[in-house]
């Protein structure tokens, strides 16, 4: 770079450059070039350039991986994993480097790495593990992009992750308080006090939980109270729980003291967790299967993941098959290890390498059924593939309720998961029940279990009659529905009406519009 051979080009500069793909274009063609790419794969950028065999994949799939999945994959924080206090961070227990290499991944490593000249570090740019993947149908548990995972592999630590959530709370610094002389405001400080809003069992006297405390939903994470006795504590939402990882006390630039408590949760993959290969092939777990139920090869190799063959024809990602075939050769000591886009090894090279390693050329193997011990009729494609665990996990998304909080205005159930809300029963769902003719079910879903309410109607004049307090001839006062139009309570009836409808009538009434209701007994 000092000699001016290599120039780092910015995005704006790039517009005015005429860049050659490679050295051979630089000299052979008539065109005049100002620059030359070090390797053709460099034009893809980092996240796309580390995908093996990208040039064999459909462009959309490459984009899925490089834009979406590479962001969502769980890896390991490179900087200060011990002291950082992100609101939410995920770490993979055992991150791995993929078997294959690309020119870009090599450029990121340091050549003077102690393990030797050809071993490059920087596994941290990869966020996943090498899984043995079989392309097969597994009892219908991997339909529609779901995948079957080996429970034994997971119990041995594969794709195990920890999730750290941080809770922060601020208090005004003593000195600042004195200078500001804010007497009207109560002085708020950290501290433990018996709280009405949650359990404080795990808190120490200073208001913070001890390291290792197991906090459940509803517990108080940071105890904070005012001198007057008002409670300002921070409580866990009903979906949140974990063990205390660390407690940090610090101050920010304005001089306010703050505390950060981080809770850790360790998760092993469960049904519903999302995974993806490097070729935009995402899927969720459909079943965790025991090791002995998987098909096994004559060597006793059992897949970690079984994906459905239907994932390939429409998605057009032969890159993944090539990755698995190449990876299998590498795992058996093959020396051809590069899968750089645009300069990928030819199919013949890959198949020959597999053949030399003692496998059939196309990467498929004879397997024995794990359930019956018989040979399966067809050969199964199996090989190591780099898989990523994505941050979408079933545990963060489960939603259930029977009764719970309702919206104060509409009196319908709330939708928010954090507030123990429900799942919306929308118009499409309504159409579905209509089509089935399930009227009673529809009535229950949309009315009885939602915003059931009652109101009074005068049967004679069809107007709404309100509950009022009125004096009766005898001198006493009674409270009850009364029609002011007819000046009687005689014909008043009670009807079941959704609260939403009642609310609408009341709003119209406030604008001077009266709504009439026809009633008949049923």
């Amino acid at each position, binding site marked *: 770079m000092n000699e001016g051979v290599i120039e780092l080009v910015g995005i704006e500069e790039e517009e005015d450059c005429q860049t050659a793909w490679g050295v051979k274009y630089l000299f052979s063609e008539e065109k005049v070039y100002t620059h030359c790419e070090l390797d053709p794969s460099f034009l893809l950028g980092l996240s796309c350039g580390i995908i093996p065999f990208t040039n064999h994949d459909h462009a959309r799939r490459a984009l899925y991986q490089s834009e979406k999945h590479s962001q969502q994959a769980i890896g390991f924080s490179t900087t200060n994993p011990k002291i950082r206090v992100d609101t939410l961070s995920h770490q993979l227990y055992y991150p791995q480097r993929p078997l294959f290499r690309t020119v870009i991944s090599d450029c990121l490593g340091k050549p003077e790495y102690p393990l030797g000249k050809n071993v490059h570090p920087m596994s941290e740019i990869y966020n996943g593990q090498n899984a043995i993947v079989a392309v097969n149908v597994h009892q219908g548990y991997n339909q529609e992009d779901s995948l079957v995972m080996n429970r034994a592999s997971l*119990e041995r*630590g594969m794709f195990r992750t920890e999730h750290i959530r941080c809770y922060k709370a601020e208090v005004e610094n003593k000195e600042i308080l004195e200078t500001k002389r804010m007497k009207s405001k109560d002085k708020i400080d950290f501290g433990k006090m018996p709280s009405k809003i949650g359990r404080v069992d795990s808190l120490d006297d200073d208001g913070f939980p001890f390291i290792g405390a197991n906090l459940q939903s509803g517990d108080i994470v940071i105890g904070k109270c005012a001198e007057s006795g008002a409670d300002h504590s921070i409580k866990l939402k009903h979906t949140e729980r974990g063990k205390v990882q660390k407690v940090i006390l610090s101050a920010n630039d304005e001089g306010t003291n703050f505390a950060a408590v981080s809770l850790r949760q*360790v998760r092993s993959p469960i049904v519903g967790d999302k995974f993806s290969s490097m070729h935009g092939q995402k899927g969720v777990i459909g079943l965790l299967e025991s*090791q002995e139920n998987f098909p096994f090869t004559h060597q006793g190799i059992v897949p970690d993941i079984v994906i459905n063959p239907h994932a390939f024809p429409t998605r057009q990602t032969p890159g993944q098959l090539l990755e698995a075939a190449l990876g299998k050769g590498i795992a058996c000591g093959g020396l051809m290890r590069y899968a750089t886009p645009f300069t990928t090894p030819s199919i013949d090279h890959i198949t020959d390498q597999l053949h030399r390693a003692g496998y059939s050329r196309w990467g498929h*193997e*004879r397997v024995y059924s794990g359930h019956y*011990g018989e*040979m399966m009729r067809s050969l199964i494609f199996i090989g190591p593939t780099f898989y990523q665990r994505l941050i979408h996990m079933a545990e963060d998304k489960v939603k259930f309720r029977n009764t719970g909080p309702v919206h104060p205005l509409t009196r319908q159930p709330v939708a928010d998961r954090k507030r123990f809300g429900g799942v919306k029963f929308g118009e499409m769902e309504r159409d579905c029940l209509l089509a089935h003719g399930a009227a009673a079910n529809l009535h229950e879903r949309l009315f009885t279990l939602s915003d059931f309410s009652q109101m009074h109607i005068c049967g004679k004049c069809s107007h709404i009659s309100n509950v009022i307090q009125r004096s009766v001839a005898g001198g006493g006062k009674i409270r009850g529905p009364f029609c002011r139009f007819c000046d009687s309570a005689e014909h008043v009836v009670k009807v079941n009406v959704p609260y939403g409808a009642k609310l609408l009538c009341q709003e119209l009434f406030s604008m001077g519009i009266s709504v009439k209701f026809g009633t008949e007994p049923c």
Partner: protein
Amino acid sequence: MEGAKNQRFPKIKIREMKDDYLKFELRETDASMANALRRVMLAEVPTIAIDLVEIEVNSTVLNDEFISHRLGLIPLTSDRAMDMRFSRDCDACDGDGQCEYCSVEFHLSVRCDQDQTQDVTSADLQSTDPTVVPVDVAARSSSSGYDASENRGIIIVKLRRGQELRLRAIARKGIGKDHAKWSPAATVTFMYEPEIRINEELMESLSLEEKNSWIESSPTKVFGIDPNTHQVMVVDAEAYTYDEEVIKKAEAMGKPGLVEIEAKEDSFIFTVESTGAVKASQLVINAIDVLKQKLDAVRLSDDTVEADDQFGELGSHMRGG
């Protein structure tokens, strides 16, 4: 009885036996038997593994769960496991899982007081029972053909100056079905013994070059050629992996039926590799014991007696005629 007519007496022939490796032939039985044996070896032969960890001090880089998980995966010598009780049905401690009949206690206390990084390994685990120790520790003390300098033990965590790890761990008996840490088997697999018949007549119609390319088409060394007579012969039938490469090659050469390969329905070649918790040979014996117990349970259960009325003869067969 009717059952006795079809009764068979499976035979086992041991080919190769090491502490952690066993290769044997299983003959005169069928796939259901062979597979049952394989499945039991993987998932139902009991071993001992650390199940409960009480952490006193942990100032290492790894969190408590991480260390507990790693401890659980350390294989422990489990020759006692078959006679031990499951802690869930232990009478002596009311299922508490803390008594000597169903558990073994371990202690670990390491502190780093040097500038170099210190490894905490399985060798630092102090067992209260000398028969239950980490497998690498056991191998070192027996020292039969074992290079101690090469093996530093199973690393649990690495410490820097000032970091400390102190804990109490309880190991219990369990099976691989409950958690993979209790699985005694690293690999259990079998293959059907192949029967290879070369069509000599058709083979002779090939030139030497064609013969060589046909032999080369198999990824494993199954066939060879006699340097003198140029005759193709089977070098190692068991190297054949049923990949059908040679059959496809023969078809591609326009000579279908050049070779016929069939799997013998009743003979299996087993390969068993153990984690070291029990010896590979003992693993097979234990598996057969477990399988027997399971069959006994079926035979003696009340269901079978009830089912007798429904299925008649079948029930009496199951009880051994």
